[in-house]
């Protein structure tokens, strides 16, 4: 999670919440959440090095593949389920989203926006799959197998009967306002608070 993401997500989490962080990495986010929001966090990660780094910070982590369906977590067992910049790496993003809003009262999802003008220009003008500092890998060896745009994500939410509570966008310094007004074109990444419709 980059620093801007982190700031937004931290602000959205009520102090004392129970938080499940999917793809928790080395536990930096959960550790900050514990210190700054007094939240009780649990991490999920598949990588042993990440597991070791997280438990060494005193965190609880469960080694599990998100793609296996997160069946070990029961409905409504967390206040918030976070998936930061990992949606595009999942085998079935739609199933994961559904599980997230079941497990948590609320879910927070962030992802890089493939509809950003730079991506469009890269594909439109160069005719090649976009690569950037944030997406440095070639199409054939990238872990990012399910890119989407802001519009794609919002339409999936509506299909899945998931309500969007709040949206924040990250854009270059000169494009902050444009990012907010025309997120699909100017947001480099987007962060959503979502919940089950009617929940």
């Amino acid at each position, binding site marked *: 999670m980059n620093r801007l993401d982190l700031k937004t997500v931290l602000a959205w989490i009520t102090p004392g919440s129970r938080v499940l962080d999917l793809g928790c990495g080395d536990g930096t986010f959960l550790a900050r959440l514990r210190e700054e929001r007094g939240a009780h966090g649990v991490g999920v990660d598949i990588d042993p090095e990440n597991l070791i780094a997280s438990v*060494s910070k005193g965190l609880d982590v*469960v080694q*599990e593949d998100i793609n296996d369906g997160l069946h070990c977590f029961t409905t409504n067992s967390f206040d918030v389920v976070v998936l930061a910049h990992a949606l595009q790496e999942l085998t079935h993003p739609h199933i994961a989203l559904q599980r997230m809003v079941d497990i948590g009262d609320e879910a927070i999802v962030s992802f890089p926006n493939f509809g950003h003008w730079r991506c469009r220009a890269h594909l439109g003008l160069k005719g090649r799959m976009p690569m950037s500092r944030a997406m440095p890998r070639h199409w054939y060896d990238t872990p990012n197998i399910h890119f989407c745009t802001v519009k794609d994500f919002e339409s999936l939410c509506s299909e899945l009967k998931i309500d969007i509570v709040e949206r924040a966008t990250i854009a270059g310094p000169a494009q902050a306002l444009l990012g907010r007004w025309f997120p699909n074109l100017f947001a480099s990444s987007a962060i959503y608070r979502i919940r089950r419709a009617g929940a």
Partner: protein
Amino acid sequence: MSETTPSDSVGLVSPHIAKCDTPFTFTNGAVLSGHELVYETYGELNSAGDNAVLICHALSGSHHAAGFHSGDDRRPGWWDLAIGPGKPIDTERLFVVCSNNLGCCDGSSGPNTLNPDTGAPWGGGFPQPQVKDWVRSQKWLAEYLGIPRWAAVIGGSLGGMQALQWAIDFPDWVENCVALAAAPGLTAQNIAFNEIARHAILSDPDWCEGNYLAQGAQPTRGVALARMVGHLTYMSADGMSDRFGRELREDSFAPGDNAEWVFQVESYLRHQGSRFSTQFDANTYVLMTRALDLFDLAAGHNGDLIAALSNARANFLVASFSSDWRFPPQRSIEIRDALMAAGRPVTYANIETDNGHDGFLLPNLHYEQLLKGWMQRVGPS
């Protein structure tokens, strides 16, 4: 032990004996009027008494978990890998206790000790202990040692099951609980392997209905075969292929060589079996495997593991080993999921290894780092 003790070893250690003069009643109703427990300790108990850690041993383990008994000891205690200064279970910070379970054969009251009522060895007459009994006897030991509660109870395999039982039976005593390569209960296949082992022992002509000591005999053939079967189930197929492959023993097929075993793996298994058969008591092996078979965490809660674990107050570390087929990762996942459903804090890891069930005893970087990282939360900060 080599000339110089490694700096991360607890060094030379000696066992202690705790004599209990009050009667001990087993779950099956049998009573010992008095008994002894042999144990070792490493590190120092602090004045607050909040740095004590209990290690529970596995089927063939003992109280000798770390360090060396003498200067010419070649092998350290069974879990020297994890216990010592700067090791995952850090004796610079923690006071570590490991006791030999009741009914074992390394010094605690058991089939090879004398029955005070008859003056003869207990032999086959020693009561059948269960995991719950060991937990109660260890609680007595803790009180005897002036320990108010355990900062952690830790074990692998049968020891891991015992650690879980501790967390359920005495929730206020267990602050943290580590269960490695464990299971909430044995499967039919697990029980079947144990039955093969028992059958090997019971059909040895030197078994003498369990009273071989009085007859001056030792059912070593039966115990060796039991151990060979057991040992086989602690290793993985890949691990065995890497270690032995189809390698032949030296001199195999040499002129005049009529040895009945030619492959390295045969030679290895025979060696394991024969070494074990002279060190381990046959009655104890029968009692231990039965205790394993009878173990069922959810018993007493109508088979509901979540309800059973809801009593616990501990934080849990549950770890499995990827190639363990005796107590496979799925069994640890059952424990993990029940703990999460019971609302207990739990960390779970599946360690990638070819070491099979023995993985919890053998060096593995991720395993040791994980245990060390997690253990930092145990004891006073």
